[in-house]
């Protein structure tokens, strides 16, 4: 009887202690889209955090891209089951900021940490002076090209729209396109089109978002050159593989391809049987400055999280304290880290790939963060570009119409200004 009483008391104590421990443990949910080559690295660092922080556990959940960007987050926010931490693209940041969904981080990150972020990377999650996320990587866009074909055709790297079109004319054959762009209207298509717009000295709207600026010579030229790519048969009007992979260039479908730095690891793993080079998207005229755009993801924190400090602690740890950025960006030499110190320390590693060094020295200085226009503006731009490319709509008329539509939208826009400082 005494033994039984002892056993019951002991088991009760164990249960009480267990409940007490469980009560102290916090579990943060961290959502991201599925990306097979990247996720194991993230998972490794989540596990490392979990091992060293038994009281704050992070549950890493990935889901297919279309679910993540389509239904998963809206459904989660609508049902009150949204993640504590998630990855957000710069283009989508403003929608969340306007709804008050993101936790401001200014007071939760130190001055030293902020100073270590590349200035352009820091701008990306900052809206009107408030920091809403921590940038992970920077992936600028350039034109990759088949160096052998350029040499055979006696072509130099084009430095103006006209030179690019001339090169396209020379490189086009019955079985090969000159330049691969994304023919399908999408956020990605606009993302890789912006360097043409900026390189022509134009922009979509004024920095204060009061005035549409599409009805300009530069914007017309940027629309026209993409129209020419399709109308003159320099670019395929449909692609069998994703436009963001380097396969069209590697398989010989095109002689040039407009794509981002993320393809470097794929090029390293499966090198083609020709030399690959890169050059920036040329400016409208040679005397003008060329431009590039960069994307990349941000760690953001749900403002409704029950554990803002713990969530921030995890994000700060993974970006500023762990070796995550080194392993995720530098070791694979296909992404630029958002931190100056990691970029500088990794220069030697990057130097094993001459294209990566070219990205750092030539493309990064002219790269701007992906714009974060409201979706209404994005739709107007997508439609305009698409009609110029496929229906032969006069770029002048298209630019004028886009300008009027954007102006009409801006006149009633009441959200935050998403322009970068």
């Amino acid at each position, binding site marked *: 009887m005494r033994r039984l009483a002892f056993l019951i008391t002991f088991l009760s104590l164990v249960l009480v202690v267990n409940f007490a421990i469980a009560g102290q443990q916090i579990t943060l949910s961290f959502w991201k889209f599925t990306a097979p080559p990247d996720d194991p690295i993230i998972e490794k660092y989540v596990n490392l955090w979990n091992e060293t922080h038994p009281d704050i556990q992070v549950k890493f959940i990935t889901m297919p891209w279309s679910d993540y960007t389509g239904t998963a987050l809206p459904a989660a926010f609508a049902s009150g089951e949204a993640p504590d931490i998630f990855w957000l693209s710069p283009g989508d940041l403003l929608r969340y900021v306007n709804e008050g969904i993101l936790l401001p981080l200014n007071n939760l990150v130190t001055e030293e940490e902020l100073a270590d972020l590349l200035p352009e990377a820091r701008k990306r999650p900052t809206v009107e002076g408030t920091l809403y996320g921590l940038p992970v990587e920077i992936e600028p866009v350039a034109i990759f090209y088949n160096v052998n074909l350029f040499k055979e055709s006696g072509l130099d790297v084009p430095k103006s729209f006209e030179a690019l079109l001339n090169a396209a004319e020379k490189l086009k054959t019955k079985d090969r396109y000159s330049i691969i762009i994304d023919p*399908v209207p999408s*956020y990605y298509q606009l993302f890789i089109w912006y360097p043409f717009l900026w390189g022509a000295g134009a922009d979509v709207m004024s920095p204060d978002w009061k005035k549409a600026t599409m009805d300009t010579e530069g914007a017309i030229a940027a629309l026209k050159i993409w129209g020419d790519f399709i109308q003159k048969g320099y670019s395929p009007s449909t692609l069998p593989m994703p436009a963001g992979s380097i396969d069209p260039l590697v398989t010989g479908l095109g002689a040039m391809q407009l794509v981002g730095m993320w393809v470097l690891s794929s090029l390293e793993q499966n090198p083609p049987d020709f030399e690959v080079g890169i050059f920036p998207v040329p400016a409208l005229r040679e005397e003008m400055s060329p431009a590039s755009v960069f994307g990349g993801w941000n760690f953001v924190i749900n403002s409704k999280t029950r554990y803002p400090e713990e969530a921030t602690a995890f994000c700060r740890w993974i970006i500023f304290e762990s070796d995550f950025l080194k392993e995720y960006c530098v070791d694979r030499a296909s992404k630029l880290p958002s931190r100056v110190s990691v970029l500088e320390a990794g220069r030697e590693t990057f130097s094993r790939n001459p294209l990566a060094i070219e990205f750092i020295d030539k493309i990064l200085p002219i790269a701007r963060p992906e714009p974060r226009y409201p979706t209404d503006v994005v739709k107007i731009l997508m439609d305009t570009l698409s009609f110029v490319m*496929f229906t032969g709509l006069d770029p002048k008329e298209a630019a004028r119409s886009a300008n009027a539509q954007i102006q009409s939208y801006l006149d009633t826009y009441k959200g935050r200004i998403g322009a970068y400082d």
Partner: protein
Amino acid sequence: MFLRPNHRTLRILTGYLFVIPDFVGLLIFFIVPAFLAVYLGLHEWSGVGKMRYVGFVNFRSIPTDPIFVKSLLVTLRLLALFIPLNFLFSLILALLVQIPDRTTSVFRTIYFAPVAVSSVSIGLIWKFMCQPNGILNVLLASIGIERQPFLGSINQALPVLVSTILYQSVGYFMVIFIAGLNDIPQEIYEAAKVDGANFLQSLRFITLPLLKPVSLFVLVTSLLNAFQVFDQIQILTGGGPAYATTTVVFYSYRLAFEFYKFGYGSAINFVAFLIQMVMSLALFRLMREEK
């Protein structure tokens, strides 16, 4: 006297009990979402954050939206191409393989096979076939015809899309027609033969009139299927080029899940639902009047 009403009530109750599972499914998956679409259509919602009530603004914007008008025209063109071709091909195939023997069984299986394959796989296969260096262009090149853009052309993309949907649906409707053909008594054909009727006369005066209920089913189902086609558009063209393959349903999807205009997307979806209902009822009425 006392037992009869009870027995009747019991029968009615049993009937309702059998219907309940179907009704619950209908309620959860069709009626409630339809009302939710109207509710959402009365709001502005970016997918995250709070919904804002805007009254009928979304519904009022629909007729003046040029892309909606374009998507409606694309939908009508798709229906005008798909419904008659689907009817014709599935009926011809059904007539060809109607009599069961070893050879027709093989052909029935071949024709039906695409129905069993997922629309995503079929979409991908057709997408590869229609590429600039795809098999179709290789075949065209072999007979001296120049490379066609197919999915990248505003004129060719919709016919290619319709061909893909036909490829997958004809086998299914063929089976429905075979069932309908087998229900027609052979004696009528024999009597017609005795009277000297040839194949075409039998088809016109016996087969087609007696297939009317099956034809109605085929027409209504193919109308609804074509109206709601999504996977093939997403895989083959993404609605492009320049909205040449964007149907009303696909446009509402893009508005909601690409541009995060859930309210306006829902309003368009509800309008699409109404259009489908009106078209289906019109078809029913037309067939009834002919009867």
